């Protein structure tokens, strides 16, 4: 468990392995929640929270239950249960104790429905990360989502004032713009961190 390994995992999750641009995870909130910088930030924070907590939970499950009892083939079922439970508990807790942060609990069910969290947990398991690496991967994947969502929100401010062909208005131009940003993010592909 070296520090360099953790740094490479974190930087990879942030840039070259960005969950939106390299793995298509969380496209739904990426498209629907980025009209303004604020909503992009709120969605990003709730996704980061969820990915962080869920990767902790799932990697504990992986190391303490699935591997010792040799039931790896149950992985997806077990992960879905754990992730759904964490989302439910967290949103209930937020509703009760953090009334001032109104925006975050509202976006939690959305977070589950768009597969970003489950996807991050599965990727962490597939890459064979240990607990610490998995936690860093989860948190930095969420931060990477926040980064890309905020970048994209800034682009969309500009898109509002530009002339778009009639049939490209709305979703199509958003997807194409996201594709172009993703093309730019491909530039990070060559960076190999140790």
């Amino acid at each position, binding site marked *: 468990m070296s520090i360099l390994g953790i740094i490479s995992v974190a930087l990879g999750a942030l840039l070259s392995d960005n969950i939106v*641009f390299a793995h298509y*995870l969380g496209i739904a909130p990426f498209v629907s929640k980025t009209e303004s910088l604020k909503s992009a930030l709120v969605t990003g924070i709730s996704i980061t929270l969820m990915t962080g907590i869920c990767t902790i939970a799932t990697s504990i499950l992986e190391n303490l239950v699935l591997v010792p009892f040799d039931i790896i083939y149950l992985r997806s079922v077990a992960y879905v249960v754990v992730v759904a439970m964490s989302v439910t508990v967290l949103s209930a807790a937020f509703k009760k104790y953090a009334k001032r942060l109104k925006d975050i609990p509202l976006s939690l069910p959305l977070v589950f429905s768009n597969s970003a969290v489950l996807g991050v947990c599965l990727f962490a398991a597939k890459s064979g990360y240990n607990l610490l690496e998995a936690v860093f991967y989860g948190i930095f994947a969420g931060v990477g989502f926040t980064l890309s969502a905020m970048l994209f929100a800034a682009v969309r401010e500009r898109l509002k004032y530009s002339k778009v062909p009639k049939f490209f208005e709305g979703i199509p131009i958003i997807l194409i713009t996201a594709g172009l940003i993703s093309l730019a993010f491909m530039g990070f592909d060559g960076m190999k961190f140790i």
Partner: protein
Amino acid sequence: MKSFINKMREGIISENPVLALLLGICPLLAASTRLSDAVVMGMCAIVTTLFSALVIRFVKKKLPEKIKLLVCILFAVFIISIFELLLRAFLLPVSERIGMYLPLLSVTGIIFAKSIRFERVKKTSDALISALACGVGFFAVIFFMALVREVIGNGTFFGLRIFPEEYGMLVLTHPSGGLILLGVVIAVFRHFFGNPDKKEGAK
């Protein structure tokens, strides 16, 4: 028979899960770089949607509202796990490429099921037909995307080489090309079949 055709048309065109409702984009883009992956993923989508429709029919009255969605998702994941194991047994290369995205499909598959509101429909057969139409709509889109991405991007058709690799449009095989192509496909779809969220776009 006529209502069957109407339902199919509705599911494939006016309520297409991808082009009109924007669901399941993640597995769609992930599995559309090769035709073989796309066919497998489309089949999984059809079967899962059918089964989740059935399950929603069964549990709609017996379960409290809070855990209904959870139970449906669990059942969908259960079906998907069977697919995962079958793929790993018989089609190992495909499983290595898209195995990651199958569980994600189950989460969106149940949302397909929710989104066409089976609970409102009276007869089970009607619900099954809409579910089938929904799955076929997903299959059609993923097959078309994979056709474009594999033939133009890679120069092959189901693995058979059509033209040399150097002439392929490499960007189509990357994630960015998938996003751009999906944008173009949705725009073309809107040109021919109208804009499904016109009312939302107006405000």
